[in-house]
């Protein structure tokens, strides 16, 4: 508006007077761009954090599975029915127990009054930040006579 009252300035430098005020960004535009940038960076950061958490949890599960497999193998010589044991490895608590197999109906598989097969279950529990996690592995083993 001011320029219409002073037309001789346009004659002196028409391109500069017209073009420069239109070039560039206003403060609002820059701020909006910054906000968009920070929001998208924040979303990316959240995704990276979640990826880290997931990788850590996957590592914990891998450890728990290896531990449970080892516990299962370590206790596969079951000599007493309803066997139970438990322990701790690092931050992981494990428990193993056995109970008679009742296959094909409610009856136990028995030989001379003894159940010959035992279900054997190993479970590993641990606390991940604030969440309790657990895995269970199960197998069937023969009930062995005591060495004595």
């Amino acid at each position, binding site marked *: 508006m001011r320029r219409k009252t002073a037309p001789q300035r346009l004659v002196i430098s028409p391109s500069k007077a017209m073009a420069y005020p239109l070039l560039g960004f206003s403060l609002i535009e820059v701020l909006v761009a*910054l906000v968009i940038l920070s929001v998208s960076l924040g979303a990316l950061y959240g995704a990276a954090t979640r990826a880290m958490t997931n990788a850590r949890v996957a590592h914990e599960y891998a450890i728990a599975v290896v531990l449970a497999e080892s516990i299962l193998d370590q206790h596969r010589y079951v000599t007493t029915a309803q066997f139970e044991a438990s322990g701790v490895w690092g931050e992981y608590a494990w428990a193993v127990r056995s109970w008679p197999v009742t296959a094909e109906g409610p009856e136990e598989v028995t030989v001379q009054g003894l159940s010959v097969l035992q279900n054997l279950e190993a479970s590993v529990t641990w606390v991940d930040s604030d969440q309790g996690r657990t895995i269970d592995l199960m197998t069937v083993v023969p009930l062995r006579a005591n060495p004595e």
Partner: protein
Amino acid sequence: MSNTRPIKSRCDGMTLVEVLIAASILALIMTGALSAFAAFASAYERLQTINERTATLREVSRFLRQSLTDIVRDEGWFSAQERELSWLTPLDRAGSVSGLQYLKLSVADDELVLSFAPYDPELQGAKEPDWGAVAPDFTLVQDLAEAKFAYKATPDSQWSSAIASEDSGNTYPVLVSIGVTVQDGEWPPIIVAFDK
């Protein structure tokens, strides 16, 4: 003429203060953006590391468990020491080797190394298999801090560091435990039962 000068100088460029302010704002933005990208890069690196650790743990434990469970006992090669364990097992396929193989797990410097030797019916536990004749040694675990093998002769006995036997060819333990500690932490013991 005198009233064109201030307008012209205003439109011709920016003052030093404006340039400085713009530069400092830009510097702030760039600092923030760069530190954010650096954080992403380091997070990605840590992600790679932890995924690699997980994969190694899974693969090594699965391989050792499988090959020890499949152990061939009749042909009698089994040697169990504190830092070395060798046995005969059929391999589905591991790199360039397959079929019946002697395997030797040993500790070399800071690595857990697996050696291969082809099955030889003449051997009968009399002498060492020809380690590395067909396939080169394979590094199972890098950055090893410690590896300890332990054995149980009977389910109720204590863990011991070696199977006390002169003819190691015929004595098999009931349980084998492979304890691996890498620089990042300890693995759970890999315990494998030999069914009798």
